């Protein structure tokens, strides 16, 4: 039986801390990129015709079926070759770019469904009422629909975000040094010893990260819902 040193779990934590920034940065980049594409996809599905709907559905279906690690490898090996055809050389681009691209592709599919269901959860009469009192389409969306959509979108968004943080740990397989990658490096430096302790401290970090993001979004949802409750009692 190999010896186990619980104290090492906390010894390794300070070495991992600086790399939390990388993990968070990759997550934020993906939320921005994937969120934007997801928004466009949802808009296309709601507003445009049947063909757009079929295309978006196909996109969502296909990305839902492909494991993220396979997607990561396809983007990592395929994207440089594909862009080379157009004369763009991205072989020296930072690895985070490939990670963010991959997870944006996957995250966008999730987000398109989150946005669409949130949009459809708001009563149609709300938009009609807003327009009938003289708001423009954009004003109605920004002032009436968007605040209500946001509340509906938060629980599903929280789910997608937690999944994203977890899946993001796959980035170390293409050599990105985030907390997972650093953990693997530390194990390598120790010639494989203390691996259990290092994994345990990684568990701890990931668990804290996901709990914080879940709880803070829940708080946000609660805050946004407060107005709704007051509205109901007043009406």
């Amino acid at each position, binding site marked *: 039986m190999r010896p186990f040193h619980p104290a090492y779990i906390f010894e390794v934590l300070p070495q991992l801390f600086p790399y939390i920034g990388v993990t968070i940065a990759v997550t934020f980049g993906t939320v921005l990129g994937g969120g934007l594409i997801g928004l466009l996809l949802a808009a296309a599905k709601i507003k445009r015709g049947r063909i757009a709907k079929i295309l978006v559905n196909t996109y969502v279906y296909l990305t839902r079926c492909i494991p993220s*690690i396979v*997607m990561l490898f396809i983007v990592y090996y395929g994207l440089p070759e594909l862009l080379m055809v157009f004369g763009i050389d991205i072989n020296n681009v930072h690895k985070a770019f490939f990670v963010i691209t991959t997870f944006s592709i996957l995250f966008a599919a999730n987000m398109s469904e989150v946005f669409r269901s949130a949009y459809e959860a708001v009563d149609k009469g709300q938009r009609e009422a807003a327009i009938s009192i003289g708001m423009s389409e954009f004003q109605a969306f920004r002032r009436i629909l968007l605040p209500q959509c946001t509340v509906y979108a938060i629980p599903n968004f929280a789910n997608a975000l937690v999944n994203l943080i977890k899946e993001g740990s*796959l980035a170390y397989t293409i050599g990105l040094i985030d907390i997972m990658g650093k953990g693997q490096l530390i194990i390598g430096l120790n010639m494989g010893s203390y691996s259990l302790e290092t994994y345990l401290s990684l568990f701890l970090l990931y668990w804290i990260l996901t709990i914080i993001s879940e709880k803070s979004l829940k708080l946000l949802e609660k805050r946004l819902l407060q107005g709704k409750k007051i509205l109901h009692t007043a009406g």
Partner: protein
Amino acid sequence: MTINTAFMIQTFLDVLAGIPVTLELTFITLLVSFPIAFFMALQKLEKKKFSGKIVSGYVSFIRGTPVVLQILFLYSLLPTILNYFIKEVLNLDVDIFALNPIIYAFVVFSLNTIAVLTEVFRSALLTVEHGQLEAALAIGLNKRQAYARIIIPQAVVFALPNLCNATINLMKSTSLAFMMTVKDITAIAKVNAAYGYNYIEAYLVISVLYIILCTVVQFGYGAVERYFSLYKRISTN
């Protein structure tokens, strides 16, 4: 950019050998997780103070940490523990390190799926009105009968879409089994690709394969769902 089609066809044929492994990993894991997850969901629903807390903690931990990490951790922990247990405690002469690594894969994916299914079952059981259980108990069914005949048949309809999602996610995560040297679809493709640096082709082939498997699973669940929601259509007609 050149695509090596001969390689793709060869890889496709090679990878077919990995399909049974992927399916085995998915369905045996599901079978193992089903009863345990159901039991755990009940602990949470019946508001048992101690066991409910443990279940909540377990679900939160598993769902809050990456599968890769769980794989790496258990794959470096389990063999040594098993070895110690069998050699020192049971005094058997079995070579643990010659075991098929798929066993470790079953353990990791089951631990993971149990947490996911616990939530699926809990939310499905919550959709059945509490009065149904009370009514069943009032007419003299015992608790087991009430669950088996009244509650579960209704809850199944609500659970199926989430179950389908869980199955697909599980099948996708089995692609990580190559870390435990299990020869599933992804592992075979990886080996083939590394030989001549044909990564793009290999991964494109298996993504098509995953899409096909995924479609089959979804069709299967669709059929089961139509069967179980029969009572709804009859009652509305």
